[in-house]
């Protein structure tokens, strides 16, 4: 009897024991080290907010904050414009076509970021395919500087983020009852009107959550600005790296990291509030 009881209790607490390895990973390997490095911004060299007043007062960092915001906003806008047609098409086409479209979205998505950047440098460099084509068509007489510009960085990050936006909008559009569109058309609404009055309001949740995901992801981007941009396109992550590797100023790096994580946290909080009604990824509705 007592043995049964003990065994029962062990069995019912088994799920909690199963969580232990993950809790170790997320607390000991992730949360504690992260909080520890962030605290350097407040504690070193002397406790206080000196690092923060220093970075906010410095025009160089103000420039980096503004660049990061501007590039992330441009990426988000570009991603909406490029993703909407694909998502729309995927909801309307036949299943086989949809699978092909999704395959063409997923293969680049899971392809190494370095491979993609390597490809882009070949397309964009002075003697690259884009410049050669432009000159062959007589559109430009001399090669344009395309690589190591803000445009290149926006292009590179958009290429990485686009699938997130496509799937966010697709999920929202998929949930729209196709009869709505038909009903609106039957009742005499013209295409633009149907779009603005019927489709857009319903697609908006997908566009908003997709934008938050893309914007959050862009804010912390490191690889693309470093390889496809010039020092003028330094974003927050690049300046953190610079502080750590060149200036050896960990407290400043931590303070900038704190600003970055604060921005990301606020946006992530909004994101979770919005998807509250929808369900988290991996959560059955």
């Amino acid at each position: 009897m007592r043995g049964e009881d003990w065994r029962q209790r062990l069995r019912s607490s088994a799920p909690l024991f199963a969580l232990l390895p993950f809790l170790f990973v997320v607390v000991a390997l992730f949360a504690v080290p992260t909080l520890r490095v962030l605290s350097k911004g407040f504690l070193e060299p002397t406790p206080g907010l000196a690092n923060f007043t220093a970075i906010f007062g410095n025009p160089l960092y103000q420039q980096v904050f503004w660049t990061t915001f501007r590039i992330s906003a441009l990426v988000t806008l570009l991603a909406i414009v490029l993703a909407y047609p694909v998502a729309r098409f995927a909801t309307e086409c036949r299943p086989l076509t949809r699978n092909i479209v999704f395959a063409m979205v997923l293969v680049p998505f899971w392809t190494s970021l370095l491979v993609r950047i390597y490809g882009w440098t070949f397309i964009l460099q002075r003697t690259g395919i884009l410049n050669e084509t432009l000159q062959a068509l007589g559109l430009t007489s001399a090669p344009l500087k395309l690589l190591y510009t803000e445009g290149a960085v926006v292009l590179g990050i958009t290429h990485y983020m686009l699938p997130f936006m496509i799937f966010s909008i697709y999920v929202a559009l998929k949930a729209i009852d196709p009869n709505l569109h038909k009903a609106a058309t039957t009742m005499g609404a013209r295409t633009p009107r149907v779009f603005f009055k019927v489709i857009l309001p319903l697609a908006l949740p997908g566009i908003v959550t997709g934008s938050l995901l893309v914007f959050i992801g862009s804010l912390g981007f490191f690889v693309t600005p470093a390889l496809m941009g010039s020092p003028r396109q330094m974003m927050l992550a690049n300046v953190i790296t610079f502080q750590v590797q060149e200036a050896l100023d960990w407290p400043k790096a931590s303070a900038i990291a704190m600003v970055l994580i604060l921005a990301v946290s606020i946006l992530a909080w909004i994101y979770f509030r919005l998807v509250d009604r929808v369900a988290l990824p991996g959560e059955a509705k």
Partner: protein
Amino acid sequence: MSRRRGPPRLGRWLLRATVALVLLFLIAPALIVIPLSFAGDAMTRFPPSQFSLLAYRNFLYGPGWVDSTLFSLGMAGTVMVLSMVIGTLTAYGIVSAGGRLKRALSILVLLPMMVPTIIFAIATYWLLADWRVLGTFAGFVVANLVLAVPYAIITIRNGMEGLDRSLQKAASILGARPARIFLKVTAPLLLPALATGGLFAFLVAFDEVVVAQFVSGSFAVPLPKRMWDGILYRWDPAISAISTIQIAITVAVLVILGLLRRREEQDRSKREV
């Protein structure tokens, strides 16, 4: 039929053209890199005019490329196995939990995915320095496990939520012990999700380059870090070759995942019949 569903004809063609252009944008880098890897002449010319395996020869015999590839394969493979084990345990814990705990855990799982990698990278630097594993295989496994395990947990959990509980119940009524139920009933049904989660974890660890900037050592240079140095400091045709190999691997993995999903769906529809 299709007239009723879509916008008018001209609009539909415009939509198709736009979609084609966006998809071209997405696959453009791959379209460039693959022919480039077989180019014999100067690497700056496109399209290449002569066929050569120079890039692949450089990859095989050039300094460090093969070492880095083996290092990355071993590291990502280890991360994959650990992620599958922790992923299964965690998914089981989350699925069994209820209400607030379940929601808190779901957000906790997403946390390492939401926090910018750069912040985790500088944090890990100190952790690995304390443990004296900076620039080692073990250090890379620890760092990449944190980044990769959420993908495994989410995927395996999705698989578990989709499991048909009545099968486990039936096995239990028939007198099977829990361990036997897991091995004979649950595990085979879970296999597609398990494999998918593992492969995602593998790809995440194999591709990681931000943390690698901070924790690499002279004997532990993962492939993406070596590619980074190649792109930034010294052009090497080997990069085209290894890029093409990686694209091929990605396509192969996605095809396997597609087949697994198909099997899963067939299983599900069979059960419904």
